[in-house]
């Protein structure tokens, strides 16, 4: 595929790997956080760990929308499906996320009308086709996805569709990065910044990392070459004694972001005073809710949502893994009680979850090697 294959060329990756090996100081330990779950997935899938120096540690970040959703919030969304006239729609990633009473897939098997969609526009279409049903879209995602939900709501409004609503769980990446930087048990030397979030937000929102914490951020793409180049750019900043926001992903990310997308978000959403994140706890102004004037599209205004907080299953250390304090294989349940067939936590479910990526690619490689 164009713009994919070229950035996976092993010969070119080998060249950048040599450059990284030459750049690192063997007496120093580097901790670089890749913010996105998409990066984590790509790192494991393409075996980048194997071409990076041992003293360069990659810390997996919180950028996995399904993973950061606390179990209570999963339950809240699923409670909507208990109404007979509701069709609950969600992305494929959500379908296997365990709530207290089961995953959406299991609830569906027990009779709830829960359907997977690829786009919020597909959910809106379902509403048009099923005028006697109330169609709810279980919205998750960072700034990458929020504009699509916003445009879908605006379209519903324009078309006069009244049986469509959104259970909004959109979150924003900057407060989560700040929470990690403020966390006393974390030392991060630099960030591989979120490539697709930045197509919407641009690179400016990450200037606080430089200004307040003196750490480099390199907004990077998701192909192996992108990630390798992003890491090299961080190392070069560190060795030059610099900290700045750089854009490795210029072919996709404009420095100023996507103005129509930001306008759509501003028209539809407002910041929640606080929102609970798995592992990170309550973070102020870190999530989006529908504006009050759009309450007729807001599932939280339409349905009675229990809003109960649920603690993580005993023994599961999803929060620590999500914060980058533990590696997936250091969790007591990893690969035994918690595996892709029977996931206990969302990190084992989502394609962007560190545990799922590690289980699928790295664990296998290790088994083969030994």
């Amino acid at each position: 595929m164009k713009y994919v294959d070229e950035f996976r060329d092993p010969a070119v990756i080998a060249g950048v790997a040599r450059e990284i090996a030459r750049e690192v100081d063997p007496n120093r330990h580097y901790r670089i956080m890749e913010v996105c779950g998409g990066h984590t997935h790509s790192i494991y899938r393409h075996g980048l760990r194997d071409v990076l120096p041992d003293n360069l540690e990659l810390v997996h970040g919180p950028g996995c929308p399904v993973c950061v959703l606390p179990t209570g919030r999963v339950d809240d969304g699923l409670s909507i499906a208990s109404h007979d006239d509701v069709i609950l729609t969600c992305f494929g990633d959500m379908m296997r996320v365990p709530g207290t009473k089961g995953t959406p897939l299991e609830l569906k098997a027990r009779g709830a009308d829960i359907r997977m969609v690829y786009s919020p526009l597909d959910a809106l279409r379902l509403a048009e086709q099923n005028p006697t049903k109330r169609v709810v879209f279980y919205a998750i995602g960072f700034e990458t996805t929020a504009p699509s939900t916003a445009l879908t709501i605006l379209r519903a409004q324009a078309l006069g569709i009244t049986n469509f609503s959104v259970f909004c769980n959109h979150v924003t990446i900057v407060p989560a990065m700040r929470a990690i930087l403020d966390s006393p048990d974390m030392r991060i030397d630099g960030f591989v910044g979120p490539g697709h979030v930045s197509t919407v937000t641009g690179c400016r929102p990450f200037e606080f990392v430089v200004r307040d914490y003196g750490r480099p951020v390199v907004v990077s793409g998701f192909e192996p070459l992108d990630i390798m180049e992003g890491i090299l750019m961080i190392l070069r900043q560190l060795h030059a004694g610099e900290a700045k926001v750089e854009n490795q992903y210029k072919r996709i990310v404009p420095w100023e972001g996507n103005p129509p997308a930001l306008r759509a978000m501003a028209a539809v959403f407002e910041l929640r005073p606080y929102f609970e994140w798995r592992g990170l706890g309550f973070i102020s102004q870190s999530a989006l809710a529908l504006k009050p004037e759009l309450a007729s599209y807001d599932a939280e205004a339409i349905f009675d949502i229990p809003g109960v907080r649920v603690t993580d299953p005993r023994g599961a250390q999803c929060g620590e893994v999500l914060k980058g304090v533990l590696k997936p294989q250091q969790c007591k349940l990893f690969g035994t009680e918690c595996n892709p067939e029977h996931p206990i936590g969302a990190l084992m479910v989502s394609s962007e979850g560190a545990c799922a990526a590690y289980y699928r690619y790295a664990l296998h490689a290790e088994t083969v090697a030994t």
Partner: protein
Amino acid sequence: MCLAIPGQVVSIHADQPLLARVEVGGVQRNVNVGLLEEGVVTGDWILIHVGFALSKIDAEQAEDQLRMLRAMGEDALAIEEVRGYSFADESAETKVLVPSQGSSKEPASAGSGGIGGLRRPDVQ
């Protein structure tokens, strides 16, 4: 979720200017281009996420970047070759050509793992 895929615009719907027909890996699908301020024309490459075009792919930037990254590999090979010159072991020229910390980090020729035969350039 945050993953996005590149596709090429095949046509724009005459009656719905915000919908483009886009080819992704041999399959054609409709994609909403309402988030692209400057609109799209046939032949444009766009990045698609949950049914919406998020960004146009800047072909020139992509080519520039690839050229630079490929050169990085070539430079490294050139440096490796120069390092291999046994007649120049202690000469000043070698020191000029090889980056200062380079001598302790010879790329290893063997190892395990890696992509498509890639080997980790081990730090010794």
